[in-house]
């Protein structure tokens, strides 16, 4: 027959994945050109969650822009707050007291654990393992309860403040936290039992999404995504802030630059975060939790209600904002996703002239075409999971 000798006709297929798709971790849209199962071209579209946080920040005082940072990476808002207040404090030239620094380190590492737990749960869920997701959310619930005990909010916390933290920690909180810290390593063992040596998991992640160390740096990757490629870059070690220079922790590094190594790195980061919290709780110094800098920090609320001078101070700081030295500053902090940087240009008034947010998710999303092109369509899901993006931060 003539038909059999005719070559089988194929054509390139274009599909749009997202913006509403459970595996894109938010409103990310990928346009994929497919040749059979192989991805020929991948074009990400972002911006669906753009709220103009940089523009809004320029029109608010340094104090009132803090809640905006909660909405960047909304599953680890503590870390964004810590990054923001560190940048503003450096610009103001003030320093938080020791106790506040330790508390901020504790809450930042709690945020890191809760973010990594969500990453683990959703990443393995995308690839087909349902059980770890349920275990992961069990521990996240404990951390959320602790946050609620600490400041009344679970998700958008705004707990760290310029010059310190909002309120001191209670003994009850410290006890509950310590209980969690002692218990948590066994929980990580549980996840590892389910996932690490799982054959399906390894088939789906080993050798997938490989990016070499030089290339990863060239793409501007940071955080666990970069360290999975074996580059030793951690802002907590390179430019320590808060109490990170007074605690011991290791920076885990990957070897094979693939999804599986990035998984191992983040699992180990959870253990190290737990170690940091433990040390901080044990070393927690006594003292105030707010810097003594009346020109730059808001006065305590009880004094505002009783005392005229503090009322005036509060009024001036809230309406006009503090008088800030002119200059520009970039401060990066290590958030669960990577390096979150704040770049401020100050013109001497109470509002930033320019507030720039260097969002790790934005940079990580840009590397998706590099990871996906040439691979199978099923690996696109693994790659989206492994770069650990949150679109609220990506789009700002």
């Amino acid at each position: 027959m003539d038909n059999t000798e005719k070559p089988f006709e194929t054509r390139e297929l274009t599909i749009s994945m997202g913006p509403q798709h459970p595996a894109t971790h938010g409103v990310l849209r990928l346009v994929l050109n497919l040749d059979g199962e192989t991805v020929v071209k991948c074009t990400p579209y972002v911006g669906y969650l753009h709220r103009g946080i940089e523009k809004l920040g320029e029109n608010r005082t340094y104090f009132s822009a803090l809640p905006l940072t909660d909405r960047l990476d909304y599953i680890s808002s503590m870390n964004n707050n810590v990054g923001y207040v560190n940048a503003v404090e450096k610009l103001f030239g003030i320093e938080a007291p020791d106790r506040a620094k330790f508390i901020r380190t504790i809450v930042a590492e709690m945020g890191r654990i809760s973010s990594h737990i969500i990453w683990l749960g959703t990443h393995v869920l995308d690839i087909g393992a349902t059980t770890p997701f349920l275990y992961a959310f069990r521990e996240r619930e404990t951390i959320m309860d602790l946050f609620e005990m600490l400041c009344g909010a679970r998700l958008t916390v705004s707990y760290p403040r310029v010059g310190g933290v909002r309120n001191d920690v209670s003994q009850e909180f410290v006890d509950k936290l310590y209980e969690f810290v002692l218990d948590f390593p066994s929980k990580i063992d549980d996840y590892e039992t389910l996932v690490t040596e799982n054959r399906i998991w390894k088939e789906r992640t080993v050798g997938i999404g490989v990016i070499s160390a030089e290339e990863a740096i060239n793409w501007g990757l940071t955080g666990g995504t970069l360290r999975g490629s074996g580059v030793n870059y951690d802002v907590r070690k390179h430019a320590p802030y808060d109490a990170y220079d007074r605690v011991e922790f290791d920076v885990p590094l990957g070897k094979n630059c693939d999804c599986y190594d990035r998984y191992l790195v983040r699992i180990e980061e959870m253990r190290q975060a737990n170690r940091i919290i433990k040390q901080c709780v044990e070393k927690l110094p006594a003292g105030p939790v707010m810097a003594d800098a009346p020109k730059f920090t808001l006065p305590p609320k009880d004094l505002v209600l009783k005392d005229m001078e503090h009322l005036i101070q509060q009024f001036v700081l809230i309406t006009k904002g503090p008088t800030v030295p002119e200059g520009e500053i970039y401060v990066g902090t290590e958030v669960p996703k990577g390096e979150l940087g704040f770049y401020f240009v100050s013109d001497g008034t109470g509002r930033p002239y320019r507030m720039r947010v260097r969002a790790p998710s934005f940079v990580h999303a840009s590397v998706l075409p590099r990871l996906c092109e040439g691979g199978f369509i099923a690996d696109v899901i693994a790659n989206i999971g492994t770069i650990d993006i949150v679109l609220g931060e990506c789009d700002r």
Partner: protein
Amino acid sequence: MEPLQVIREEFTDDIISVSEFRGQISVTLRKDNVFEISRFLRDEPGLNFNLLRDLCGVDYLGIKEPRFEVVYNLYSIPYRHSIMVKAQVPENDCRIKSVTSLWAGANWHERECFDMFGIVFEGHPDLRRILMPEDWEGYPLRKDYPVKGPEKEWSGFLNVLDKAKRFREFDWHG
């Protein structure tokens, strides 16, 4: 050797000013040779600024002339030093050479800068709007752009409203 010293010696003619604030050094440059200087900073042994941490624009409307600045925030992972390089871009010649071929990560940063400030990056492989819709008018982070947005609705939203109205009038049982 200190990075600043090297830059001073190599590119004396391009430097407009150098400033330091809280231990962070920033160098303001003429925009013409920014690409060559960036390549030098990246490749020169002893400097090796291999990580482009950030790239963003700043609008100094009514404060400084030229109006725009593009800020390159560079970091060297092996040497642990950083520098901010700022290139001045005038409003009437709103273009600068792209550094995407040096740092692949600059790709989206430059697109965002184009989206928000209207600065054109020459030699960029795919210069489109990124955060705003493709048919958006105006550049939101410019200082003369209002916080509450333009008076008229965005055409894309008008299309949606129009479509909703048409569907409401549709006779489903006819």
